[in-house]
């Protein structure tokens, strides 16, 4: 199966280590059937998030089926929203930011995506973690 047919997953954390660790868990538990990119830290290598780096991660994980972004805290979400705003218009509507915990959401979203589910289903699966 061509992984580019499946929804891509982007992990955005304030910490590069958290982002990489979450991506490691996705790879080990779900495999390599989904495009995946992880980004963390600011431009100086400290804790934070960077709009340009997030845009790069969206590009790396890009799929025609769309991309689901998982974020950790405040700035990760607002900078991800800004990154989405700066993407080409044709892509914007195929990028969603999930309201879900970073690690669990990334694994669940990737598990859903690996079966070929569309973007809205991938997002719903990640966000299901927040409900009962």
């Amino acid at each position, binding site marked *: 199966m061509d992984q580019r047919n499946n929804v891509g997953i982007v992990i955005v954390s304030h910490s590069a280590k958290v982002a990489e660790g979450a991506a490691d868990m996705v790879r080990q538990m779900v495999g390599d059937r989904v495009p995946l990119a992880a980004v963390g830290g600011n431009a100086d290598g400290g804790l934070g998030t960077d709009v340009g780096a997030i845009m790069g991660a969206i590009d790396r994980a890009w799929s025609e089926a769309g991309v689901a972004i998982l974020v950790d805290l405040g700035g990760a979400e607002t900078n991800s929203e800004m990154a989405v705003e700066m993407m080409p218009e044709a892509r914007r509507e195929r990028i969603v930011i999930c309201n879900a915990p970073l690690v669990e959401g990334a694994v*669940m979203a990737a598990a859903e995506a690996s*079966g070929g589910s569309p973007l809205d289903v991938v997002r719903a699966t990640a966000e299901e973690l927040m409900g009962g």
Partner: protein
Amino acid sequence: MQEVKAHALLTNEVGLHARPSVKLTQLAKRFAATVEVAIRADGPWTDAKSPVKIMRVKAAKGETLFMRANGSDAQAAVTALVDLVNRKFEEE
């Protein structure tokens, strides 16, 4: 449409933990049939294509996983799931 049922004993060390759960949902999603699992013969039944729900089943080693499927490829789906459990989710 005939409902197909089967069951298999969880013999792998960790049971239906995170990674086996993901493998089970990935496999179930390959079939058009509705596929459900339960840890008792009379349910409650859980959608085998939902990674979040399957992970909440928390079936342990030594428990029996019951399966049922409905649809044109229900038999193939149940056979594949039983096979995955019997192969210990390819983990051991």
